[in-house]
């Protein structure tokens, strides 16, 4: 099956981080297989149809019949078995495709054993993802934003909620789309098969910044995943330098604390992304910028320039305030 994939090369695009044909997750791989089956069957049918069409165009019109008493029906009689065979071929083909679809669907829906499931809850907002890792022990729940880590080979059940409008969660490499609808809970299961770094994109138009609503997905080994989880549970470290301390004071007493939370500080607001481990993420503002110092400056100084209409206001920081805030945020690994 995989050897047939080059057929889909035009569709793959050049980006492997967000590639639908990657097949890096169990659901994604199953779906790709089904896609290839469809492609082959329909291509073969297309070839036959085109052959028949071209043949009928270039077939020489017979001259007036030389056999006395022959009519159209008699002339077409030799073609009847061909017609029956054609109909049978179509019926078989359709039956084959239906069965393949059914079996793939069953395989995708197959329940993973409950004790191996990772439980994640994703709440979509305009235009960022609020992520909670659930646990049977309440003190081990994790809250983060715009980035998830998954252990390879372990299925993760993701419950999807929305706070405002309909969004859609789609990690092309791993699985199909699932909508997040306000007032309802939907869910999906991701079971990654390959270690790597992937990108998800909101797949349902949700407002002015729908295009800047990505989610970074990192699939890693079980040991690395646990190490990440332990790091996520530690609260933010106390600021070490005077500049970072000034930034800490600003962040926890001024505008930032009205919307953002940083564990271990008085800032506990819930309506904006959790910043406790901001500096360890791959991107800023749901994939709008990569996580670099310069981009952090650009984002904090003018969020409306990068993502106009999003809900983070232009705070209007003084230059020294900006320096101190960035210095503090960079310590939030």
């Amino acid at each position, binding site marked *: 099956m995989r050897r047939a994939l080059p057929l889909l090369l035009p569709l793959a695009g050049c980006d492997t981080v967000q590639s639908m044909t990657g097949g890096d997750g169990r659901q994604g791989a199953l779906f790709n297989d089904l896609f290839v089956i469809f492609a082959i069957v329909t291509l073969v049918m297309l070839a036959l149809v085109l052959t028949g069409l071209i043949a009928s165009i270039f077939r020489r019109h017979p001259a007036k019949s030389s056999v006395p008493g022959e009519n159209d029906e008699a002339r077409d009689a030799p073609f009847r078995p061909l017609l029956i065979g054609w109909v049978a071929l179509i019926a078989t083909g359709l039956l084959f495709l239906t069965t393949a679809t059914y079996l793939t669907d069953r395989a995708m829906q197959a329940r993973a054993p409950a004790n191996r499931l990772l439980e994640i809850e994703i709440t979509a907002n305009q235009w960022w993802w609020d992520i909670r890792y*659930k646990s049977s*022990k*309440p*003190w*081990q*729940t994790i*809250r983060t934003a715009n980035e998830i880590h998954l252990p390879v080979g372990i299925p993760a059940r993701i419950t999807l*909620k*929305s*706070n405002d409008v309909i969004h859609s969660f789609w990690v092309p490499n791993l699985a199909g789309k699932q909508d997040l609808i*306000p*007032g*309802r809970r939907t869910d999906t299961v991701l079971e990654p098969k390959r270690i790597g770094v992937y990108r998800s994109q909101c797949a349902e138009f949700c407002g002015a910044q729908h295009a800047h609503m990505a989610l970074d997905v990192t699939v890693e080994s079980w040991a690395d995943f646990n190490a990440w989880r332990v790091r996520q*549970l530690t*609260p933010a470290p106390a600021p070490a330098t005077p500049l970072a301390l000034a930034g800490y004071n600003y962040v926890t007493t001024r505008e930032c*604390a*009205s*919307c953002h*939370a940083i*564990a*271990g500080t*008085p800032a*506990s*607001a*819930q*309506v904006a992304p959790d910043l406790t481990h901001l500096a360890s993420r791959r991107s800023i503002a749901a994939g709008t910028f990569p996580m670099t110092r310069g981009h952090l400056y650009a984002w904090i100084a003018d969020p409306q320039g990068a993502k106009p209409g999003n809900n983070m206001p232009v705070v209007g920081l003084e230059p020294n305030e900006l320096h101190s805030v960035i210095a503090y945020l960079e310590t939030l690994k």
Partner: protein
Amino acid sequence: MKEGPRGARETAMFRAKLGKMFMRSALGQRLFAPIVLFALLLPAQLDAQRARPAAGAAPADDGQWTMPSKDFASTRYSALGQINRSNVRQLRPVFNFDTGNRRGHEAPPLVIGSTMYLVTPYPNSVIALDLAKPRPTVKWTFRPAQKRAAQGVACCDVVNRGAVYSGGRLFLNTLDGQAIAIDAASGRQIWRTQLGNINKGETITMAPLVAEGRVLVGNSGGEFGVRGWIAALDAGSGRVVWKAYSTGPDKDVLIGPGFRPFYPSDRGKDLGVATWPPEAWKIGGGTVWGWISYDPRTKTIFYGTGNPGPWNPAQRPGANKWTTGVFARDIRTGQARWFYQSSPHDLYDHDDINEQILLDMPVGGRMRGVLVRPGRNGYMYVIDRASGQVLSADAYGYINSARGVDLRTGQLIPVKEKEPKEGRVVRNICPAAPGAKDWNPSAFSPRTGLIYVPHINLCMDVGAIEANYIAGTPYVGADVKMYPGPGGNRGVFTAWDPVRRRATWELKEDLPLWSPALATGGDLVFYGTMDGWFKALDATTGKLLWRAKLDSGIIGQPISYRGPDGRQYVAVHSGVGGWAGAIVAGALDPRDPSGALGFVNAMRDLPGRTKAGGRLFVFALPR
């Protein structure tokens, strides 16, 4: 739970008929003498079958009223019997006094000797009236210096639940978080201690408890993400001796080696952290804004903790210890003795701060020292004072959000369909957020052995939303709309028999009952309605014997005392307000049903039936 269809009268008639038949039989003739002997001894036995206030916690009545609960056992019972069932119809107003304040008056007047002390809502003035004069006059007025901004972080009207008199001093708390001691004779301030921080949304509305040289104070602010605590101050100096938080690690909650909770779910290390998501316990609630009872024999205080924050339960998975539960602590050191959580992972703002009446009563055949508390979640709990075991939990109101209390594990059994969900509205949850009974305490009469419970019958719709925490602003996360429960009556007055575990009689009221009850030795029960009717009922049968219409709704504790002339007086404040009366006290707009955290929808008719006020009324029999 409730008595069967047969009334008391019919049962008595049936028994009399049986008795006559028995006496005419031959067996009856032979057993006559033993039966007479038995009957003579029966009253003594019945007496032994009745509940009594806990020994040592309810001293003999001296005709004064020195603390809002009357005594440490919280009986709210005055033994004075001059006003009784036969003459209460003649009860007349003797004098009244306008405090000048127009918010909700929840505090009782205190009477010590010939002086009466009134405590007003914010700004919490204390007014001393000289009762010895023919027309009572003001001796002094004490006005504590307070931050005005405290009014903005008081969830349920700027009330104060009263002061306490002890050793020549009055102790009270102010809205902006101070505990104050003033000299009762002169009105001079002796000490004040700043305990609460209004910038975090912390206020104090409760009446302190003073015993063993300690002043016990707890904070308010469960709707603001305030971490709850109870503190003991030295009565002489105001210095904090110990402080026990309601959430957090064991060393903050003062849980040590002497902590022996009865149920396994309350045993473990640092449960005040482990039953919360990370950091959530710091803004977790569990405030102590209600009533404390005290057992002097064992030096134990009993009090309840408030709701966890926010109201939206999805933001705080876990049992959320140590909120919505009852603590027993040593008054000297503050170390916890036991804890029982009435509503683990509370879903409905069912603060557990209601009064606990300390009784010695027969349970399962033998006398036990218990505390009886009408829980906010609708169950009447009887809990063993020594061990914390729940001996019984019977519903005294209509409940469809829980199936009962499992006495083996102590856990409340919730109904899954009634759990609030984010982004959706769950309808018809009973009881509503103020519960089957809110703060207003009940009274116990040792003569009838009944607990008189003024309470409410409300249901609600809740739409949970994600709450945002900003210090000093509400941290709730719920849109609420309340309306009358089954039957259409919003208030109920129940006479509950704690031994038989059921209501003896019940009265329906149109408006919710937000006033406490008073029981007297004349076999009378007094309470007030929110549209201003002050009523006296027969304590045994519940028949209405007398009532008077006051100028404003009543939410304050009625008291009874012996005046300087030796006569019995009954006093109560009018002045509607509190959470239920916020629509009048705060002049709210009835067009928005979600106002006052949902209460406005249930009280839209109140502004048409009463107005704001603040007047003390005193009644007595004519000379």
